[in-house]
Every structure is written in structure tokens, then in C-alpha cells.
């Protein structure tokens, strides 16, 4: 028997719905072909998952939650889908970033609402144009300070 034929009928073999001869042929093939046997094990394990998932535990509050919701007393079960929260968080971060950037730029340029330019202490440190270039540092004649 060819592997492809086994692959076609493996599901039916595992659920026991094949005729006797096909069943025996596949059983024999699985005993000799490691690859098909491995796949049969995998397929069986996947189908076993259904049996786990069919088990539903008790939940004594389930009916109460529905009836509360019908009568308007129920808590809103779901807040917002994760995707909406994610977009809202991204928007908030962007808005915060933009406003922070504008404020820092305003501070650094020394620009105020009246159009006047005045240099605050922060302005001095934020705007490196006002700071002493490194070259001038080396040009300082320390003897002048002594």
C-alpha cells in the first residue's frame, strides 16, 4: 500500500469507519512505515484534543449573568476590544510626544506667547547655540584666572 493512499484514509481509519480490508491494509502499512506511523500519532493526538475541549465545567452564575444583563443590571462584560485600546494608547503617546516636543522647542527657542524673546535659565541649557563651543574652552588662557 502506498503512503498517499494511507494519508487519504487515515482519518477514517482512526475513527474506525473503514471496511475491514482497508482497515487491515492501513494497520499493516503503519507497522512498517515510520513516517506514516508518526503522522498517525500526530493526527490521533489532534483529534484527542476534541475530547478535552468537549468537557464543559459547571458555572452556577452563568444564568444569573445573562438575566442581570437582560434586566440592565449586568456589568458590562467586555470593556473595549484589545485592538481599540492599543490604538488609543498609541494615539495618546503620539499626542503626548507632539505636545512635549512643542513645549521643549518653545522653551529652547525662548519664544513666548507675546512674541518676545527672552532667554530663561532653561533656554540657555537647552539651546546649545548659546553654550560655549568646545574650541573656546581650549582657547581659554588659564593664566588669566590665576
Amino acid at each position, binding site marked *: 500500500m502506498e503512503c498517499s493512499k494511507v*494519508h*487519504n484514509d*487515515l*482519518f*477514517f481509519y482512526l*475513527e474506525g469507519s473503514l471496511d475491514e480490508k482497508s482497515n487491515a491494509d492501513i494497520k499493516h502499512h503503519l507497522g512498517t512505515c515510520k513516517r506514516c506511523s508518526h*503522522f498517525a500519532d*500526530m*493526527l490521533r*493526538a*489532534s*483529534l*484527542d*484534543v*476534541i475530547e*478535552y*475541549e*468537549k*468537557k*464543559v465545567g459547571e*458555572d452556577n452564575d*452563568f*444564568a444569573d*449573568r*445573562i*438575566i442581570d*444583563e*437582560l434586566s440592565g443590571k449586568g456589568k458590562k*462584560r*467586555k470593556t473595549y*476590544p*484589545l*485592538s481599540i485600546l492599543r490604538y488609543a494608547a498609541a494615539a495618546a503617546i503620539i499626542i503626548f510626544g507632539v505636545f512635549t516636543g512643542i513645549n521643549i522647542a518653545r522653551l529652547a527657542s525662548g519664544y513666548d506667547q507675546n512674541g518676545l524673546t527672552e532667554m530663561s535659565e532653561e533656554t540657555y541649557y537647552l539651546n546649545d547655540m548659546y553654550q560655549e563651543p568646545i574650541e573656546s574652552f581650549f582657547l581659554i588662557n588659564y593664566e588669566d584666572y590665576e
Partner: protein
Amino acid sequence: MNLDRYYNEKVLVNALIEGDEGAYRYVIRMYREPVIRLCRGFTGSFEDAEDLAQDIFLEVIRSVGKFRSQSTVSTWIYRIAVNKSLNYIRDNKKRNYDKFGRGDEESFRGGDEYDADIPLVNKEHAEALHNALNKLPEAQRTAFILSKYEDLRYSEIADIMRTSISSVESLLFRAKRNLQDKLREYYEKNLS
């Protein structure tokens, strides 16, 4: 509270329409497990299935006035459950695809997202199963889940899906073939 009087479907439906809380509790008690099982087949997650089941019962109770008694209450609830589950998957598919983006693979869930009650060794098989199920055409997937998760007969599946028994047989045959092909692809790609 004695709920036995609701065994009669006509009494049950009238009581639901009238807003009888006992009738609500009866329907929920009778169908909670099948509905959650079905939803779990579609979603692969118990938590999602429970949320979805809650929405389904709200829909059942709110729309009971539209029930025309042309089918059984059970069939009608299953239809609502299937429709809601398919809509849920359509709505979530893209989100999960983005979340677990794996090239051209329509990954539905990731291993860590699976329920805690599934033994660790089965989590990768659960992922394999739901990835494969999620790639089946909706009719095949629905027939498969109604058959394997709910153990319904072909005639019951045919009623729910509004199709013939032979169509259900054909859908299930193709679903099983396709499922094993998808699982083989998955295992060759991920677990070999």
C-alpha cells in the same frame, strides 16, 4: 423552582416571549453545555466560548418573538449559535492573523492562548487542530464541529444547516479529508 412545565416547547416559547425568568433559566440550563461546546469548537478557547455563549443566549431570548415553530427550539438555538460563532471568527480572524502573523498562514490562535485545562503536551496539537479547522470552508467546518463536538446525527446537522442528509455526508467526508491534509501540512512545517 420547578422547571418541568417547560418540557413542552410551545409552553416554553410562550413563557420566553412573556419574559418568564424561569423559562430563561430553563433554556440556559438545557443548552449551556452544548452551546459552549460548539463555540469552543469554533474558537478553540473556553473563555471566548463562554463569552460567545452568553451573547448567544441574549440573542435567543431577545429574538424569541421571531421564532415561528417551524423547527425545534434546539435547532433554532443551534442555528443562532453557529451564525454567531461564524461572525465572531470573521471579526477576529484579521486581528489574530495580525497578532500571530505567520506569512501566508491563516493562524487563528497561538499556543499560549489555549486553555489552561488542556495538558501542555496537547497545546501544540490544539493549535494544529484549530489552525486546520480554521482553514476549512465554513460549511465543512460547521458540519464537522456539529458532528464531532456535539455528536449530532446527520439528520440533525442537516436541519440546523438547512440542507439534505446527503449534503451533510458529503460535507463531512470532505471536511475530514481536508482536515487531515491541513494537519499533515502543519505537522510537516512545524513539528517535523
